[in-house]
């Protein structure tokens, strides 16, 4: 009964102050649209960085002269690292496998046919569980007698460090940006709702006169804010859908896109994004009007 009344009051207010309601809706639309464009982009960049970071492998080359016992000891060492969770997995790449890989990578593999013997050492390809663990792996196998004296241990230390820094930057920068966007949106919607409250201050005065509690006064305004926020979010989602179909999907399906080729980038799915944005719109409206009302409800 009360909820019904709050809804009727909110709708009455929206009708009575149509221009202001439209302004609030457009404000919500813009805020949600920016959020909706930013969140998938942010997640895309982050997953691209993550995908690169995950590729920080440590290659442990094995000397051609290493004995079977020495190789077994090294294998046992790596098994130990795997057991403690430092290493997620490691694979043995034999001399022949290494040559086959090389053959694949070369534009003209026939040059390898000229080789009298296979010069490539065998290796363990070690994938640290966390990119940060690469150093631990290196420390564990350094000076192992089975190591190839020339190649030793190879891993892209600087690349790993840079990628880690970039990943952290993208993550915290993204969170900060989303936070700033949300605060700006709340203030904007609050400001617009303030106009509506100002238009209805007479009504608030009467409500207080007849003994309405602050929460009772607040509800219709909050619902009004939620309705405007939802309406803005729905339009924003429709616009984003159009952009996704028209621009993003076309771009993603073009074969030359470097990042999509890696195959490991992911971003938020559209239904999930829709849900998130609709909820964000509603919350923005409610919080915006709630905060603004506080000033009007001081007795």
């Amino acid at each position, binding site marked *: 009964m009360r909820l019904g*009344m709050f809804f009727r009051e909110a709708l009455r207010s929206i009708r009575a102050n149509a221009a202001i309601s439209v302004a609030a809706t457009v404000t919500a639309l813009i805020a949600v649209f920016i959020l909706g464009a930013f969140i998938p982009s942010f997640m895309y960049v982050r997953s691209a960085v993550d995908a690169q970071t995950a590729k920080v492998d440590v290659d442990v080359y094995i000397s051609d002269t290493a004995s079977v016992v020495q190789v077994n000891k090294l294998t046992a060492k790596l098994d130990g690292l795997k057991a403690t969770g430092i290493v997620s997995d490691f694979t043995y790449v034999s001399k022949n496998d290494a040559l086959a890989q090389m053959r694949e990578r070369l534009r003209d593999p026939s040059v390898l046919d000229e080789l009298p013997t296979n010069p490539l050492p065998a290796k363990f390809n070690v994938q640290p569980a966390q990119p940060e663990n690469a150093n631990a792996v290196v420390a564990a196998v350094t000076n192992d007698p089975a190591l190839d004296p020339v190649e030793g241990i190879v891993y892209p230390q600087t690349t790993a460090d840079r990628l880690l820094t970039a990943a952290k930057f993208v993550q915290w920068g993204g969170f900060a940006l989303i936070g700033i966007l949300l605060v700006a949106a709340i203030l904007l919607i609050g400001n617009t709702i303030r106009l509506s409250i100002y238009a209805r201050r*007479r009504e608030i005065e009467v409500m207080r006169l*007849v*003994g309405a*509690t602050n929460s009772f006064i607040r509800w219709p305004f909050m619902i009004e804010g939620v309705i405007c926020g939802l309406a803005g979010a729905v339009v924003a989602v429709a616009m984003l859908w159009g952009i996704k179909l028209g621009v993003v999907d076309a771009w993603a399906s073009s074969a030359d896109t470097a990042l999509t080729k890696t195959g490991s980038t992911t971003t938020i799915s559209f239904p999930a994004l829709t849900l998130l944005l609709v909820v964000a719109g509603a919350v923005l409206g409610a919080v915006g009007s709630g905060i603004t009302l506080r000033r009007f409800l001081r007795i």
Partner: protein
Amino acid sequence: MARIEEQAPAFTLVEAAQQEHADDLVVSPPVVSEKRRRGDIFRPGPGPMVDFKGVIKEYDGQHRGLNGVSVSIGTGEFVFLVGPSGSGKSTFIRLCIRELRPTSGSVSIGGRDLGELRKSKVPYLRRAIGCVFQDFRLLSDRTAIENVAYALQVTGHNKQEVRRRVPEMLSLVGLDGKGDRLPREMSGGEQQRVSIARALVNHPRLLIADEPTGNLDPETSMGIMDLLLRINRTGTTVLVATHDMHTVDRMQMRVIRLDEGRIVRDAEGGYNEDPGDTGEIV
């Protein structure tokens, strides 16, 4: 639900309204001992309805709205608060409904010291006090029925109660059949009756009227004052701030006169000190 039935004044009030000569229908004295309503903040038991003790109200630290006012209005009284503009009448009223707080001194309503009243309880104080203003303060986009119903909805009454009590109230104030009109389709007197119905629909024990006849012609004013008197006869304490000399003279009730924030007279009778004198304000 049941608490409605406990509120005797609703029915006695209607009965009183149905009597052409309500004078011989002096209903029971104030029902202070009745079971307390939910959210009723007044303390039970006898005692003054309005009690000001040494109240000083300063605005901006200099100008004084009230300058040391001590006065007590008993439960069930009908009191006029008179005085020229700026004498402190509005300050007095705003202190009663806790729109203002005294700079020093204390204000008690229904035995409750408003200085100790928590902010969250202020709405309950306002429900226990009906307020009527010179400018009616009706919602212009709502009909008479909706305006009165609003006060009930705000205090959380259900549809059935609203449907039952609103026509009852409108009939009480003499607006039978006019419930569907918007404020702009009504005369000033009719609008003021709507605002009185709204003030009464929650069965306040104190009705405060700030210049209720300020915008009305003398004849209409008389009708409004008679209505307030009838309401008073049902046990509701009525406080009327006015500078309508003729009305005050005609009614011969207790008159509290303010001048420059002080009480300069508190006695039964007319507007001026000498009951026979209808001349200028002294």
